[in-house]
Each structure stands twice: as C-alpha cells, then as structure tokens.
C-alpha cells in the first residue's frame, strides 16, 4: 500500500510536470557550472511499523520538518543531496497483548532525525522548462531517541540506525531563484525495531516507510 502511494505520488508529479514542460514558454538562461538548490522541507512520514506507532504515539503518519541542499548539474543532469529532517512526537507507554493495547499513562517522547546523503538524475527535456522531474537514492543515517517518564539510561533509547531511500519528485521554478517541489520517498531501515517493546509484540522490525515531501527552496549559482 505504501509503495503504491509512493509510486502514485511520483507518477502524478511526473504527469503534471511533463506536459507543462512541453507547453512552457519560459526559458531560463543556462550557464555552465553546478547549481546549489537549498530548500526547506515538510515531510509526512508513513511508517511501515504502523501498529507499533499507532499504539505508542497514536499514529503511524507523523510530520517531520527540515531541509537540504541539492547540488545539481555536476555532470550533465546528475545531482547530489544532503538533507536532514526532524520528527518529534509525544505518546505514552503501553502494554500490548494479543493485539489489544492498554495505555499505561506513562509519557513517552519519540524523536528521529534522518540524514539523507545521496544523489540522482534530473530528467530535463531538450527545451528549457520550469518543471524538473528527478529520481535518485540516498543512504540514511537515523539518530533515534525514545525517552519515557520514569525511565533511566537503561530504559531510554538513544541510538543511530542506517538504511536507504529511493526517491522521485518534481521541482518547479516559481521565479528564477525560487522553487517549490514535491517528492515521494521509500525508506528501508531494517532491523531497527522488533527486539523488544511494542514493535516486538507486533513483530515489526523496519523503521522505514513512505515519506511524502513538500519543499520550498532557492537556487544559487546560475
């Protein structure tokens, strides 16, 4: 289901982008050299471990905020990316038995700060266009914290996990230097969960899922 959402989001972005590209009269001037595209991002993370997140923090659909830099046109249409987002959500500890969830009234705070390091390819047409579809992949480093009331160092979690993401999206130039964009990611962070806690009760081991991202950014260098 989440993969379907991801693909649908990407397809929709490309479908919107390509006809516009064909019809667009706007022709930005091209200059040689890389372009720095810095952006702020608002994510909606939809976790694979849906039962676990539903039980503990009340939802498996959580917003995250952050930003990144894409350096485009390094070689032809290749770009590289570094992005960071941050998610924080308050919930409560539970006991899970045979699928039944018993909230225990013990506050818990979850924070995650995924760092993406990767790159991709922009699918530019032969004619200049304000829309630039792209796709790529990234390595993920995910600092993860889970802090509970009454918890001590042994109870709380402060750990980093690694994983990977593939993404696709479209960037639209609003002006010569201002952009907006939409992107979908599929993230895999295997074996981060499932050894204890609610994730063990639900046998959910992957901290990844689908991320829908909206960006607003500026282009520098061209």
């Amino acid at each position, binding site marked *: 289901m989440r993969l379907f959402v991801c693909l649908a989001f990407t397809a929709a972005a490309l479908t919107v982008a390509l006809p516009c590209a064909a019809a667009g009269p706007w022709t930005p001037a091209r200059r040689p050299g890389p372009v720095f595209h810095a952006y702020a991002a608002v994510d909606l993370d939809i976790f694979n*471990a849906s039962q*676990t*997140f539903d039980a*503990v*923090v009340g939802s498996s659909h959580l917003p995250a905020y952050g930003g990144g830099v894409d350096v485009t046109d390094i070689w032809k249409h290749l770009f590289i990316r570094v992005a960071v987002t941050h998610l924080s959500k308050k919930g409560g*500890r*539970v*006991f*899970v*038995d*045979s699928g*039944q969830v*018993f*909230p*225990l*009234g*013990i506050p*818990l705070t*979850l924070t995650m700060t995924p760092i993406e390091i990767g790159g991709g390819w922009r699918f530019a047409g032969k004619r200049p266009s304000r829309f630039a579809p792209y796709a790529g992949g990234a390595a993920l480093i995910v600092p*993860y914290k*889970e802090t*509970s009331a*009454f*918890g001590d160092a042994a*109870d*709380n*979690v402060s*750990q980093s996990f690694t994983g990977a993401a593939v993404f696709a999206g479209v960037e639209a130039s609003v002006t010569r230097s201002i952009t907006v964009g939409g992107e979908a990611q599929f993230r895999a962070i295997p074996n*981060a*969960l499932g*050894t*204890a*806690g*609610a*994730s*063990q*009760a639900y046998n959910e081991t992957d901290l990844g899922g689908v991320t829908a991202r909206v960006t607003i950014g500026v282009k520098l260098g061209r």
Partner: protein
Amino acid sequence: MRVRVLSVVLGLAGVLMPGSHVIGQQATAPAAAISPERADEYVEAAVRRLDYLPGEVLIKFKDGVAPDREQRALDAVRSRPSVDNLEWIGEVAILRDASQPDATVLADQLRSQPEVVYAEPNYLRHHFSTPNDPGYAARQWNLQAIDMPRAWDINPGGSPSTIVAVVDTGITTFTGNMTFATWNGTAIQNVSIPFATNPDLSSSRLVLPFDFVTNMGSTVLDTDGHGTHVSSTIGEDTNNGLLDAGIAYNARIMPVKVCMSYWDVQFSFSAGGGRGFVPSESGGCPVIAIGQGIRYAADNGAKVINLSLGGTSPSITEQDAITYAISKGVFVAIAAGNEKLNGNPVEYPAAYAPSLAGVMAVGATNRSGNRAYYSSTGNYVEIAAPGGDSQDSDQFGSGFVWQSTIRPSVSDPDQVVIPRFDLYAEVGISGTSMAAPHVAGLAALLYSQGIKTPASIEQAIKKTAKFMGAPSASDATRSDEFGFGLIQPRTALFGMGIKK
C-alpha cells in the same frame, strides 16, 4: 481420596510492636457461631485427619432435572435422604448425611447417577501458622527483592477504585468485644473477647466484607491471623510511619472469610456443650465456602482475588467458581503449595492455573533469591515471588515475610487459653501463602495502571518476569520451580515503548 494441606507456614516470629495498638472497645456484640453439629464436623475432620467435612457432599444436578429426578438420584444413597433437606448454594446442593461420614463413598454413589453432573466431598483447604522467636532485621527484604521502590515511583500504591478480595481466614472489620463460649481448661465459660481492626490497614479501605463459614454475615473476624497477614502484603498502609509496607497500599481490600480457624471451631464446639479443647489442627476452608467467596467477590466489584490456600484433591465447585470470576474480569493469584518435601503432590486450586488465562499459580523464593525449600514444583507453577524460608534465615527470622497481623502471643492456641484479637504486631511467616499476595498486589497495581483484563494482567506479569531455574523439558520458556520467573513489578508497570 484424601486431601493434604497446601499451605504450610514454616515459621512465624512475632515481635511486640512498639506502641502496640489496643483499639478502644465498643459496645459488646452478641456472639455468633456455626451450629454445634457443624462444629463437630470440623472436630471430627481434625481428629480423623480428614481433608473433607465428614458426611458432606456437594452435588450439581444437570440443568432441567426435576425434583422427582433429583430424589431418584438421592435414592442411590443408603440413607435415602430427601431432596427437601438439601441446602442449596447457587446451583450446588449440599447433602449432609450423618449416617455415612465417609464423604468419598457418598460422592462415588451419587456421581454415577445420570441426573448428576458431579458430586464431590466438601474438601477442606488449609494453611498453618507456627510461631517463631521475635527478632530484628531488615524485615521487608521481600519488597526490595522485587524492586518495589522503583515500581512505586511509577505507580504509588494503586488506586482505591481497584478492589482486591482476600479469600482467606478473614480480616477483622469490627472493633469491640464479643462474647463466646470456650473451654478455659476446666469448664465451658462465656468469655468477652476483644477484637480490633488492624491499625495499619485503614478501615476505610475495607469494603463489602462477608463471612461464608461462621454465619457472621458482613461482620468478619480473623481469629487466625493468616488472612490479615496476606492482606498486609497486598496493601498494608504505607508511608504512615507504622509497621510495614504493602504493595498496593491504595487499593481497597474485600475481606472474604471462607476458612474456619482453630478458635472458630473451639467457640462453636464449646457453644454446643462440647467439653475440652478441640484438636490443634481443627479448622480449614471448605471448598463450598471458597466457591461462594470467589463468586461473591466477583459479583461485588473485586478485580483481583488472592487464594493462599489449597489441597491435593481437585474440586469442580472451586474450579467453576474461579472460571466464573475470570468471566467477570477478575484476576486470581493462587499459592502453588508448600509440599515439595512431602511428596510434591499436585496442588489445587493452583493446578487449574495453566488452563485458565487470568489465573496464576505462585511459587515462593527466599531471601537469597532461590526457591524456598518447601515450595511445590511442577508444570502448574507459573510465577514466583518472595515467600520466605526458615532455612534461609537467622535467629531473628530475617528470612521470613514480615507484615502486620494479629499478635500471636495473645491469640495463638498453643500459647493462650483465652485469646484476644485486638493486638497487632509485625509477624514473620513463610510459605507460598505469602508469595501469592505479592502477585495479587502487583495485579492490583497493573489494573490501576490500565491493564484491565485478567488474561492480559497474567501476560504482563509473565512477560516481564526474570527467568530462573532450569528450563522445563516441555516448555523452555518456563521452569518447574519458578514458572516464568520472579515477578518484576517495575518492569511490568513500565510497559512498552516503540523499541524497548
């Protein structure tokens, strides 16, 4: 078929409580007692070392059986008792047949009748208390052993909305004097006996008491001390600078008396004109009263029941009542038995536990964290908790479980001729009777924390237990000595996050 006692209390040490309370005596109340014939049954059971009340059988007829068919079934008994003389307790009828004291014979005759679902003797469950020397030591090692202080950080004593029923020898709910006939060594004498509530268990926390063995109704008198000790482990008043601490010290306690103490039998025996002292082993807990008590507790809002009693014969009456309690959302903690060195027989009602989600059979650990030497073992032991151990103790009794209860020096039939039940002290006792209320107290905390079903309370306790002992051949996740392990209240209350 003989039943042996389950709950052997291995040692008891009483110390005088500094500033022991003598509650102001109030108006004298009339004494009440069981009938002389009934008292004789208890005496005869003690004399003949029977594990049932002689001449009593519990009968459950099939649904829809008409009285004439019930009479036909009763005609199978040699004395041909009349159906009109049966005493009915819910769906169970009690047949009393003085002409055939061997209740196992009566039960066998009736069991084979087509109208009968089951017939069984009215078994007596037991627990014994033996005094020990008073002493000093770090008394409540048991609560440290299960990390209760950190558990109380999360849940300080549970909630008054959680009711724990102590189905046992009772917890005294009356302060004042009552007159009873008793044997003073030379003659029967009417004696004014003082009673008082436990000063370290607020009367406001006692709810809906009921006595199912001595016809006292809602006035419950503990003339043994066992029920009071058990209730103190569950929820003795805490942080009040008096005596000891209890686990769920905000929970309310329902005193349900189902056991006749020595003194209950003596008073009734003397009231009926019986001369002399009854045997020291007199008393016990008839399974019909246990069944009534369990159903009463379940019907009146209890969410946890503690059963620190047992015997070696199964009882359908008792099992049905426990099943009923679970259906009403009640968790049941049961002592696993103290008979390891006496052939280690299977103990009931503990042995029902593995087949009933929401019921746990509790074995005992000692101060060193090992199995208490007496603690019964087997595939029905599901969990372990501190129960104390005289062989892991010292001259001060530091290895026992210490809680407030009636002071033995003024109530123990081995020490006094005329007892009083208004003085309380810290008393050290050991047994799986003491282990079970640790689990009952934890269950009350878990209920108040939000785990509302008995099966899930059992799972929370099991899954967070600290595994001990050798894995069982049939199930490597448990051992026959400790079940799933030693309870970990703090871990159970802390529950689950996402990753931990």
